[in-house]
């Protein structure tokens, strides 16, 4: 179905603007229209996995560029995840001025779909910058500032300035890439034959890498993240933490690996070191937080550090695991943030010291939280485990054995902070002055259900995601003998990766 991919990108944006133009009273209708758009997007994406690319010429001078959208082996499941998470977020929406809220969420959906489906670097950069705007506006208009209304938007500033600094470097790098290569229509194109000279390559890669590291975020570029995740309204943070933060990792996979392999290998020691710091720092900081949202925020820092290391190991299995974990993390962190949002809505606090004993009166709420928390700590059978296992296996085989060992520490710590989170909210003695509220309503349940279903299914059988990613990873990490997907890697397949690993040892 030609035009479908473009419609997935532009459709939500257009509907968003239509909603904005609706009369003021149309709040509830706007919300369910948004839900319908997201559901339709999920259905269309799942129903047409083999849709051909759409490409319209864009620039010819000073370099070639095209409006080129298409599903990729890496991006397909991330986009499904994005659409599902947006669906959940929209179902869970409950706020004033719902019409504008829904409109912004749809623009965000379209812009982020654009990032993942763009097959042209310039288009990628365009949507990369565009996706910051709705998040900023949502944070300003509906944010939950820690320091009262007067401090509204300080986190929004931090988010915007950090990410835009990255975005602008990305833009400059893209322009330079276009000038050197002559075209930016290269993402996922095996015939692109990109050769970037060493002098240029280092600088151009530095531009991309900065943007990706800030977005992920990785220590020491993470300082925007806790405040942003804390202030964003829960449905938005579900999408931002679940998917937007994956854009940087996705960039490393589809732009870094094929075009800047040499530079990435050179940067491996540094990036792996940053990844390890993020891994440990995130995990131990999460253990010490009293703000429930910040626990999850710092746990994200830890998890994403692991994914980053996996990508830089140049190992096919580790990269396939990274993609699985990207999807898995998207599902469970979105679920976690949504459920924490429900808790905050009910009890008007998210401090673990103030909360406690909610599980007695709210069994369904506790059930949702326990599922998400277990997925996050990597319980076998749920999605997190599949991704972690693949990554660790891959790391070990790629010669990153020491790193794999270190990575076990935060996985253990994850169990501690996730259980602490659950206990702090649901278990323990009932806190007397907490208001008694209704348990999870069916609409709230409907919002979390697809996410929970998603990480259960992915945990039972990660094959669809892993297989597609593994094939793509093989192409990205250089010519290797074909293997069946999901197979355990043999040494011969990852020989090229060992060369890179030498620099680490």
């Amino acid at each position: 179905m030609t035009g479908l991919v473009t419609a997935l990108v532009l459709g939500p944006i257009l509907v968003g603007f239509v909603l904005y133009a609706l009369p003021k009273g149309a709040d509830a209708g706007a919300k369910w229209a948004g839900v319908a758009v997201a559901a339709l997007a999920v259905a269309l994406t799942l129903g047409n996995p083999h849709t051909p690319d759409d490409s319209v010429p864009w620039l010819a001078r000073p370099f070639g560029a095209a409006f080129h959208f298409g599903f990729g082996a890496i991006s397909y499941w991330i986009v499904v995840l994005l659409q599902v998470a947006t669906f959940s977020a929209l179902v869970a929406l409950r706020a004033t001025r719902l019409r504008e809220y829904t409109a912004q969420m749809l623009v965000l959906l379209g812009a982020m779909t654009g990032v993942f489906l763009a097959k042209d670097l310039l288009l990628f950069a365009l949507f990369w910058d565009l996706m910051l705007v709705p998040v900023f506006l949502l944070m300003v208009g509906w944010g939950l500032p820690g320091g009262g209304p007067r401090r509204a938007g300080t986190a929004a500033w931090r988010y915007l300035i950090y990410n835009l600094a990255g975005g602008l470097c990305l833009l400059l790098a893209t322009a330079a890439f276009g000038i050197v290569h002559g075209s930016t229509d290269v993402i996922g194109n095996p015939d692109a034959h990109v050769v970037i000279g060493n002098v240029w390559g280092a600088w151009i890669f530095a531009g991309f890498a900065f943007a990706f590291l800030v977005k992920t975020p990785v220590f020491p570029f993470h300082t925007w993240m806790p405040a942003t995740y804390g202030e964003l309204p829960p449905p938005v943070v579900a999408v931002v933490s679940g998917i937007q933060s994956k854009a940087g990792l996705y960039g490393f996979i589809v732009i870094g690996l094929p075009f800047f392999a040499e530079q990435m290998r050179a940067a491996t020691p540094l990036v792996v070191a940053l990844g390890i710091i993020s891994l440990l720092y995130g995990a131990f900081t999460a253990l010490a937080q009293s703000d429930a949202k910040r626990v999850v925020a710092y746990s994200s820092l830890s998890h994403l550090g692991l994914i980053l290391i996996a990508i830089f190991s140049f190992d096919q299995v580790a990269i396939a695991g990274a993609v699985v974990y990207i999807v898995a993390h998207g599902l469970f962190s979105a679920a976690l943030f949504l459920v924490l949002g429900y808790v905050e809505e009910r009890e008007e606090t998210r401090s673990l010291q103030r909360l406690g004993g909610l599980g007695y009166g709210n069994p369904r709420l506790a059930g949702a939280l326990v599922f998400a928390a277990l997925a996050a700590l990597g319980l076998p059978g749920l999605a997190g485990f599949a991704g972690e296992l693949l990554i660790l296996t891959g790391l070990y085989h790629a010669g990153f054995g020491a790193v794999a060992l270190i990575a076990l520490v935060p996985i253990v710590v994850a169990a501690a902070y996730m259980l602490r989170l659950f206990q702090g909210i649901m278990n323990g003695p009932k806190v007397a002055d907490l208001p008694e509220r209704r348990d999870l309503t069916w609409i709230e349940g409907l919002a979390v259900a697809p996410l929970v279903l998603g990480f259960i299914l992915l945990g039972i059988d990660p094959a669809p995601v892993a297989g597609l990613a593994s094939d793509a990873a093989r192409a990205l990490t250089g010519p290797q003998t074909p293997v069946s997907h999901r197979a355990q890697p043999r040494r011969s397949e990852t020989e090229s990766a060992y060369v890179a690993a030498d620099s680490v040892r």
Partner: protein
Amino acid sequence: MSPPIPYVNSADLHALLPTTVIAAAGLLALVVDLFMSAGRARRWIAVAIAAAGLVIAGVLTAQQYGHSYPAFGGAYMQGGFAVVLGEIAIFATLVSLGLGIGIGRDDQVAGTTAIVLWSTCGALLMAGAGNLMMIFLGLELLSLGLYCLCAMSVRSAARESGLKYLLLSSMASGFLLYGMALLFGGTGSVALAAISAAPPSPLIALGAGLFLVGIAFKLSLVPFHSWTPDVYEGAPLSVTAYMSVVTKAGALGVLGRFAYAALPPATANAILLPVWTVAAISMIVGNLAALQQIDMKRLLAYSGIGQVGYIVAAFAGQTPLGLRYAIFYLAAYTFMNLGAFAVVALMLKDADGSLGVGAFAGLAYRRPWLAAAMTFFLLSLAGLPPTAGFTGKILILASSVGAGYWWLSVLLIAGTAISVYVYFKIVRAMFVRVDEAHVRAERSTNPLPWISIAVCAAAVFVLGIYPLAPSDIIPLAK
């Protein structure tokens, strides 16, 4: 009896036809006004005459597209990129006049309208000027009108504005004239083409330096920018909007032709290096200073300083495409900047007033369409997609990186990062929830800015999505 002076060719006159039409429209507005009785109708009649003249001139200018003819022995280069600059100036004039339906009191409007039109004539002459005399003629025609227009208000700030502009602009003209004299002395010709043919000499380098100082004043590049915020703040809104675009269109034409046609290729890079440096400083300093501003006109003045820096950066290395992208960005700037001015005009009861940034608080919930338009224009000014500012910046970056001016593109990115804070301050104010009682909310009764907003927004969007065709029609430098 001495031999007869060669006739001025009819093709020469044809080249000046758009300028002539605009000048005549100004005269007509004056004459008609003499027979009008007092009342608001006077404003509309004068502006309608001006608009008719501008539209006709716009059509005539468009017809000159592709006709490359050096009129008056090369004094006025018809066709070429002057066509695009001319259209920009004409469009900006039209929009500016619409912001407040003319400028000044009812009985002043005919006079001010005529002055605006004649100033536009000056900008058109500058854009096409092929020799030093024409450059100076155009520049003075443009500036003389603006001295009066800046002071055209009852507020004392307006008088300060007019006087400041008179003094500093005259000084700039002095620099320019001195430079021209040295260039003439060094080459023996006033024609720009002859300057590039002359052998290099210190006189030419010095002359070119002084000349460029004069032009930098007019473009308000740092450190020759100090007049801009005060003049912009004091002048009536329409005049500020007008100056922010039309003077730049004229001066950019001069700078472009000078950089590409007049400088000897051997020394051009050395002579122009200070210009790129000044452009780089402008991007940083202009945007940094804009951070502090709370008055919209001052804020837009400082942001304009930064934007001009971007435009001039496109020239870096004098690549053939550089001039095209500079003009493309100027077009983009014209639409986004005038769009923002039109929004400001709609938020003022009296087009002569001033607007603080605070007036934008909660605008998205009071007047959602206006806020949406303003957000769009500010996104473009900040260089975010999907707007003309984004594509314009991509093209400039590609041009300067391609020419090897890495440092310039890195500074451009730094300037942009700062400017985001400036523009998003307003965006944030519009979307933040406020107590409406604390906001001074005014409305304009004039519907014309809405037309400008619609046109500008459409243009910003189209240039932002599909810049190829529009940028390709801009003729390359000759």
